[in-house]
């Protein structure tokens, strides 16, 4: 989307919401919020409001979809009709289908699937209010929900996006930066022993030089370690009541 004349996304080193380029939006994470689900998480990142639930491992029907050696993972990203400015018709659109696919792929290699052959682990994530960066917020919530469900994983998955606004790389883009910016690059990482072990989600659309893409990765990595602390705290709080 071309910027309206005269709109500056960065003024005096500050973004439209007052953040510096390397600052995250406020984050709130709560684990185990739903009764019926095996694991759940409510998460707010900026004005994004996300609810994630995990059911599983559970029986998978029809039988022919089962994998004899490991669990099937299913991930459904869905936006509530009231979550966006213009009401969104209920049901999956092409964008949701793509997001569901890459999000599932971000979590699949981290879940120790061989422990649950012939079953399915279903991850449902609802965007209740959208404010740029929904897919990364959803993956963060899903990761906490999976841990809350007691599912075996190699580590946690933490996601964050890097954008480019007025030529500057910006962490965790907000709505205007997402809309009028020059690039959007979501990442998700596997975190083991409080360190980044590898990349599980990697996408980009926009225009970046090779150096910018590499720098964006560095920015995302440090931010992910920050976000991971929040995810960890949320789980600890559920079981100990302490922060």
């Amino acid at each position, binding site marked *: 989307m071309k910027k309206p004349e005269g709109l500056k996304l960065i003024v005096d080193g500050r973004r439209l919401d007052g953040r510096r380029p390397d600052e995250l939006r406020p984050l709130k994470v709560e684990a185990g919020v739903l009764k019926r689900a095996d694991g759940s998480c409510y998460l707010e990142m900026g004005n994004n409001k996300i609810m994630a639930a995990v059911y599983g491992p559970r029986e998978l029907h029809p039988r022919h979809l089962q994998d*004899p050696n490991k669990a099937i993972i299913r991930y459904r990203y869905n936006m509530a009709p009231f979550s966006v400015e213009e009401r969104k018709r209920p049901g999956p659109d092409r964008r949701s289908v793509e997001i569901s696919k890459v999000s599932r792929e971000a979590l699949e290699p981290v879940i120790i699937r061989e422990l649950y*052959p012939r*079953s399915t682990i279903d991850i449902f994530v609802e965007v209740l209010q959208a404010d740029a960066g929904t897919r990364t917020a959803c993956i963060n919530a899903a990761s906490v929900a999976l841990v809350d*469900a007691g599912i*075996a*994983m190699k580590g946690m998955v933490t996601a964050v996006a890097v954008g480019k606004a007025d030529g500057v790389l910006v962490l965790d883009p907000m709505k205007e930066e997402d809309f009028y910016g020059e690039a959007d690059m979501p990442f998700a990482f596997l975190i083991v*022993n409080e360190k980044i072990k590898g990349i599980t989600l990697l996408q980009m659309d926009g225009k970046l030089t090779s150096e910018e893409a590499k720098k964006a990765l560095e920015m995302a990595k440090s931010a992910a370690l920050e976000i991971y602390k929040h995810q960890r705290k949320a789980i600890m709080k559920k*079981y*100990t009541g*302490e922060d």
Partner: protein
Amino acid sequence: MTGILSRKLVLPGDFLSNNPKLAGQGTYVEQGKVYSKILGLLDRTESCIRVIPLKGKYLPSQGDTVIGIVKEVTSNGWLIDINSPYPAFLPLTEYPDVKPNKKINEIMDIGDIVITKVLNIDPKMRVTLTMKDKICRIIRSGRVVAINPARIPRVIGKKGSMIKLLKSELDIQIIVGQNGLIWLNGDRRRVSIGEEAIYKIEDEAHIEGLTDRITELIKKRKGELMNEETRGA
């Protein structure tokens, strides 16, 4: 409930040790290092590091005692729901003393609750049950309590200490299913206290001082019972 943990809480990916030989339940080894693979309580001894799960579905294991509900009656046995991602089957041949002229659904019908043992799990994760063990029976009295299967070890306690406490203090029959279902049988009111105690164990399994709190609860409730009885007399 929240409070001081009896042990350290760990998350998937937390580093536990450089010695793969110590890796026990709830952990995984990668490049010579041991990490937690689940959310749970760390249990570290000299010979073993394991993580005790706080949650998770019941995954059947051969020899487990499980309590289930008959879902379907087939021509040669019963399909039993054992509260697991894996359905279980009790073949007619594994039912002791089948009277020749009895129809299958006259022996056990949909909705019956049974105590069984896991005989075998085949590579396709099909679970076969048996009732040829003295602990097994169809439940016709008492109450069945369902809790988070991950808390069952705490209900049993170290070397059976918790379950012994409940049985002796309440003088009731208790059979614990590994799949999270527990059968209590005996005097109605004492069974009720047992139920309450088990839910409390489920809720507070990871908090320090549980055994004391359970002992206290039982004493209190038994005291209330006696007061009722003396007043009633």
